[in-house]
């Protein structure tokens, strides 16, 4: 059983389109995250979501919006896709919010913008 699953695994689309990436965790965790791994291989936090509280990294454009229908899901919606959005996006979850909470990652979604 996959603990944190993301769909799709690959996403190829054109500039200007709107797309969504889904994330589900079956670990019963309270906190979920989205990270972006760019071409330089840095993993950077985009959002964390805990108990209906959304914490946004200030560098994330407002074209990106997370949506959480319930505690087990945190989907990522991206509007008006740009070339610079090409990256691997990782979803993660942890039992609770806190610096000492190990995060469990999905396998990533590779987004390519044509």
């Amino acid at each position, binding site marked *: 059983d996959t603990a*944190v699953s993301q769909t799709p695994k690959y996403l190829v689309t054109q500039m200007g389109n709107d797309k969504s990436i889904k994330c589900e965790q079956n670990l019963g965790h309270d906190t979920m*995250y989205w*990270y972006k791994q760019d071409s*330089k*291989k*840095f*993993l*950077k*936090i985009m959002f*964390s979501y805990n108990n209906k509280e959304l*914490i946004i*990294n*200030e560098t994330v454009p407002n074209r990106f919006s997370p949506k959480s229908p319930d505690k087990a899901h945190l989907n990522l919606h991206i509007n008006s896709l740009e070339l610079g959005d090409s990256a691997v996006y*990782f979803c*993660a979850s942890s039992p609770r*919010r*806190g*610096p*000492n909470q*190990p*995060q*469990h*990652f*999905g*396998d*990533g979604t590779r987004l390519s913008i044509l």
Partner: protein
Amino acid sequence: DQQVKQNSPSLSVQEGRISILNCDYTNSMFDYFLWYKKYPAEGPTFLISISSIKDKNEDGRFTVFLNKSAKHLSLHIVPSQPGDSAVYFCAASVSAFYLPGGGADGLTFGKGTHLIIQP
């Protein structure tokens, strides 16, 4: 600006020997550190962590050392095994950010070191 630096993009070690992966950080507010391991086409997997109140934490073959004055930590793997071949990420966090109104959440990662274990 890189707040967490892993200056060795790759490291090659013979099977059975010790692997030492290094990590430096610049933000003195970091007070919790974690190591993650990543195989190709998979997400990172948590390995081991250390709080800034400690200077060593051990879990089986894995030991993490923290030198706060030097803002340096290292991961030791003894003995190294073929399955240890992966990319290792150092990550850091600030406890105060998790307090109400603390601000940015999540981990700050280094760029990773690709460890290759040779038979």
